[in-house]
């Protein structure tokens, strides 16, 4: 009880306040605890969440509340200069699952089975997708219309048979098609699985082509169905812009055809390049890297590469495959550098003329080799006997290295470098394609030997596009242009949003120098003939080049050194329009000189391209002899009238049969016949059965071919560079074949026995 008393005493001490006071005190503490500490903490926490973390939390909330469906934008098309479609996107669909809406495993299995069958997928893979807990699982992309119809039917079936709805949906998608397959593959490029440009124009102009994806944003409840109140926001997809290239698909395909032929004929190991440029604007008319690849199937290597990779050990195959793919996609015309060799003499000559260091009377002496101080081995001219004394023009036509070493010396290293930069070799051309490489020139002082070899295009490397841009500058009046492949961009409604104008970077040489160079280069081709790109009826200027691939070990070729055979030419020489650079990297056939490998390809291409471009022909008297004419239409005329008409057209006439009227003719209407060729007119059926046997027409000069053919009553059409000295190399209808009289036999004149002025 003592304890009790003590406490009682204690409490009595407080009696001044009373027990009521104690309760009040403690209640006050309680109120403070609840209202200040408790409510205070609650308010603080709420303020933090709403004001500080609010935006982040709201973002996350909105993320889950809004079902954001992306509507693909249609990627713009790519057209050639004339509006031919090179790349376009077509509607396809993607199959999407909302697996969270499945209710039973039975539904899942049925759905997986059906989709796997229709879409040709593995059942297990689809089943796995149906078991996910989400609203968006892509089953297959880019399915075409027929599959789409099947899927739509299947959706109905799932609804009917399994009461399963809201699970499968089809979303619009687009697929890229390249109607021309491998045409201009290195220029056009291709797109990836998400429609993003990966190479070429597709990559470079991705921003223009891609368009802007649209979105359909709908508020969804946690079950993925729409909330009962309307919350939908549509942002329409904005289709991509269309791109018009400067490339002419016809020219491009002509170039590709003959480049491929050149690759095969000369067993070229490391691909070839052909660039055709409008010399006055810098527009690229054709840009070929052979072999290209099929843009619709860019991940398939050539059979040769596949076989090569198969021989490698397993662990290295993947690496080799990806290396082979990037090599295949590589646009050699702009991404690889090479030593321009003698083609560069165009530039060296221009420099000397511009600096007035040479004129028609300047002479150079060539003993066959030049020994430079400090260098053990003399530099040889390709003509080991030496060219002797020659004028400036002769030095160019002879492509004489010792003469150019002297010209280089006259220029000096500083001037040489200055012009080198002026021609744009030291900078990227700025062409609107990805992956342009830079040149590789002496970074510091050029030694005497450096200048000597540089003057004829050795020991530094540039890109093909730089070479042709410089060539264009030499012949167009001295303007260094910025090359481009896209001429205009239009929106999806066809309104032009960008027109590409030509861009002159600078004038590097004067108009006079340019005119003089045109004269010299036209003279070069005219005198050197087929080896320098001569085509009857056209004034062609050009220069061949055979450069050594110093320091390049692979690929192996049969020659002691690897070479690049190139040719750079243009037409017409008196009013240059189109320039073309052709080069083959590492030819390993019988010949490797530019004049033997590249010039024929150039001639083949230009012989078709120039008529297509409607470049006017101007034949000299001697050329006219070998020029083809078109057979007229004589059918239906009386035999006398027909004979008269054909003679007026410049043909000789043979009438066969006893009828009054011409019922058929050989050669047929509009087919090519040489001037003065023989037209056979048939007036009855029986006479048409007569035949002649085709003789051998190979190994003759053009006039000899003419003589033989006319003796047999056959016509010939000359193909290739036909000069009086040319020797025929092929005939399209082989010896011994029976044909009707008057049939046209195409005879090819390729390289000739002229000297190789490289």
């Amino acid at each position: 009880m003592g304890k009790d008393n003590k406490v009682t005493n204690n409490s009595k001490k407080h009696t001044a306040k009373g027990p009521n006071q104690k309760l009040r005190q403690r209640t006050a503490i309680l109120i403070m605890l609840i209202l200040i500490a408790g409510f205070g903490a609650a308010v603080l926490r709420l303020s933090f969440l709403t004001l500080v973390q609010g935006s982040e939390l709201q973002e996350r909330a909105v993320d889950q509340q809004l079902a954001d469906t992306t509507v693909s934008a249609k990627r713009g098309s790519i057209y050639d200069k004339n509006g031919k479609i090179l790349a376009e996107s077509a509607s396809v669909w993607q199959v999407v699952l909302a697996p969270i809406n499945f209710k039973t495993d039975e539904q899942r299995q049925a759905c997986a089975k059906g989709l796997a069958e229709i879409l040709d997928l593995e059942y297990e893979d689809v089943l796995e997708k149906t078991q996910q807990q989400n609203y968006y699982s892509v089953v297959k992309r880019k399915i075409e219309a027929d599959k789409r119809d099947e899927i739509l039917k299947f959706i109905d079936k799932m609804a009917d048979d399994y009461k399963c709805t809201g699970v499968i949906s089809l979303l619009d998608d687009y697929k890229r098609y390249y109607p021309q397959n491998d045409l201009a593959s290195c220029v056009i490029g291709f797109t990836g699985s998400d429609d993003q440009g990966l190479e070429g124009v597709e990559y470079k102009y991705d921003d223009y082509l891609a368009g802007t994806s649209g979105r359909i944003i709908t508020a969804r409840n946690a079950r993925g169905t729409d909330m009962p109140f309307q919350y939908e926001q549509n942002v329409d997809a904005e289709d991509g812009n269309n791109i018009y290239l400067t490339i002419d698909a016809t020219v491009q395909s002509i170039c590709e055809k003959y480049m491929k032929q050149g690759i095969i004929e000369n067993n070229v190991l490391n691909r070839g390049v052909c660039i055709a440029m409008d010399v006055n604007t810098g527009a690229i008319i054709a840009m070929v890297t052979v072999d290209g690849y099929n843009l619709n199937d860019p991940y398939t290597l050539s059979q040769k590469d596949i076989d090569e990779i198969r021989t490698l050990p397993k662990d290295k195959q993947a690496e080799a495959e990806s290396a082979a793919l990037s090599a295949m996609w590589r646009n050699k015309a702009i991404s690889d550098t090479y030593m321009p060799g003698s083609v560069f003499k165009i530039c060296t000559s221009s420099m000397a003329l511009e600096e007035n260091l040479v004129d028609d009377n300047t002479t150079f002496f060539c003993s066959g080799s030049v020994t430079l101080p400090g260098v053990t081995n003399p530099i040889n001219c390709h003509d080991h006997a030496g060219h002797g004394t020659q004028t400036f023009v002769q030095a160019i036509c002879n492509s004489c290295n010792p003469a150019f070493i002297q010209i280089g010396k006259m220029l000096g290293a500083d001037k040489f470098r200055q012009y080198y930069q002026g021609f744009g070799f030291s900078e990227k051309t700025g062409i609107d394609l990805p992956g342009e490489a830079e040149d590789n020139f002496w970074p510091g002082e050029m030694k005497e030997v450096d200048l000597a070899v540089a003057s004829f295009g050795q020991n530094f490397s540039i890109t093909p596009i730089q070479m042709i841009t410089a060539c264009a500058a030499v012949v167009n009046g001295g303007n260094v242009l910025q090359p481009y492949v896209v001429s205009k961009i239009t929106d999806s409604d066809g309104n032009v949003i960008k027109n590409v104008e030509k861009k002159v970077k600078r004038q590097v040489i004067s108009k006079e120098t340019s005119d003089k160079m045109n004269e010299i280069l036209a003279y070069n081709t005219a005198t050197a003939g087929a080896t320098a790109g001569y085509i009857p009826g056209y004034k062609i200027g050009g220069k061949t080049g055979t450069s050594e691939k110093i320091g390049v070990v692979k690929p192996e070729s049969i020659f002691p050194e690897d070479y690049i055979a190139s040719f750079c030419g243009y037409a017409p020489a008196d009013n240059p329009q189109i320039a073309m650079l052709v080069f083959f990297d590492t030819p390993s056939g019988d010949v490797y000189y530019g004049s033997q490998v590249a010039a024929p390809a150039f001639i083949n291409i230009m012989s078709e391209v120039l008529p297509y471009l409607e470049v006017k022909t101007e034949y000299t008297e001697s050329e006219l002899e070998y020029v083809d004419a078109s057979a007229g239409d004589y059918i239906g005329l009386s035999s006398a009238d027909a004979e008269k008409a054909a003679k007026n057209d410049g043909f000789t006439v043979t009438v066969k049969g006893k009828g009054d009227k011409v019922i058929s003719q050989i050669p047929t209407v509009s087919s090519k016949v040489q001037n003065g060729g023989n037209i056979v007119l048939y007036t009855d059926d029986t006479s048409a059965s007569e035949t002649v046997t085709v003789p051998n027409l190979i190994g003759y000069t053009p006039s000899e071919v003419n003589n033989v053919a006319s003796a047999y009553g056959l016509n010939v059409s000359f193909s290739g560079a036909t000069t009086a000295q040319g020797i025929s190399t092929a005939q399209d209808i082989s010896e011994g074949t029976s044909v009707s009289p008057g049939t046209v036999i195409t005879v090819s004149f390729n390289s000739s026995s002229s000297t190789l002025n490289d």
Partner: protein
Amino acid sequence: MAPYKKMMLKADINRIYDDEYIDSQKAKKEKFFVRPSRQRKMKKPGWFSVGMGIDLPFCIIILVLLTIGTIMMFSASYAFSYYTTGDSYHYLFRQLLFIGLGLIAMIFMSFFNYNKFHKIAPLVLGVSYICLVLVLMLPAGDGGVKRWIPLGIFNLQPSEIAKFSIILFFAHWSSKYYNKMQFARYSVLPGLVVFGTTALLLYFEPHYSGIVIIGILTVLMLYIGGMKAKYLLIGFVGLAGIVLLLAVTGGLSYAMSRMDGWGQALQSVRGDDLWDATWQTRNSLYAIGSGGLWGLGLGQSRQKYLYLPEPQNDFIFAIVVEELGLIGAMLILIIFALLVWRGITLSLRAKDKFGKMLGIGLTSQIGIQVVLNILVITDWLPNTGISLPFFSYGGSSLIMLLAQMGIVLSISRTANIERQ
């Protein structure tokens, strides 16, 4: 007080037995009893207090909260209601029914002479125990817990009764033994016994948040009832020790599973172990964050579209913040604070210790639940199921709540009568 002046005064005969009352009576005799002689003549008080002597501000605050709460409950529930029952008004209609019943109970209790509870407090505690035992014998409900006794139109939640009976019992106890509360055997011992047995029964339901609230209420009642502060301190240390022990032995498996992910709601990523466990809390935080300062507007919540599970229950305030913003939430909290303030101050005006303690206990309980509820929905406390008074959907809790508010009103009425 003018309108009440003519009201009949009734002496509260109970006060005569209340020692403390007599003490205070003597101390302030002149101040409060203008005509004590007349009061003495009053006949023994009956079961009901009559007249309009209730505390009007307190009553208005209750009605304001009830109105706002019902509107928000409807807003929060209609999407969930639509998707789960097909009827957007399902919860609203039922809640309105409960409100009707609750208001009847409140009015009834406001006239009921709360002093009658003084005598029956142990009996109420007994009934509470019976209910707590009974619920354990019934089959388990949702989620394998046994928390409700189905009573037709609504489910009776024995823990609600337990909360009330504990407040009632300790108000009774500490006013009865007011001068012995310093002794541990009159304060700590009954506290431990009553809390311990109740907690044990709740543990079997299990209903941990009920245990927490009952623990807090027990301590609160004993503290204001006069328990020595040092026992409180010892109690806190002991509690911490017990929690630690249980945590170590793993006895709180269910609670731990509910606490799993406590504070991790925003760190969890889809598909991990905690994603589902923290779903409700995470979506609560999303809702609160989405509200910002001004809210998305009444009815504009998006999180209530099945993202926040059962938005009409414990997590209703998250939807309130989403729709009304921090500003709206603060206004509601201010009204709650006014309720607590007014309820406690009016209870202090009661002339007997029992009335004071009962009023303070019942009002504090609301404040404590509000605070705990907000700390739960904001992920500062584990998600344990503490409803928000006047807002959360629920029959038994709402009816109990309004009945309890009726008792506080009854206390205010009596205090007011005596003030005349």
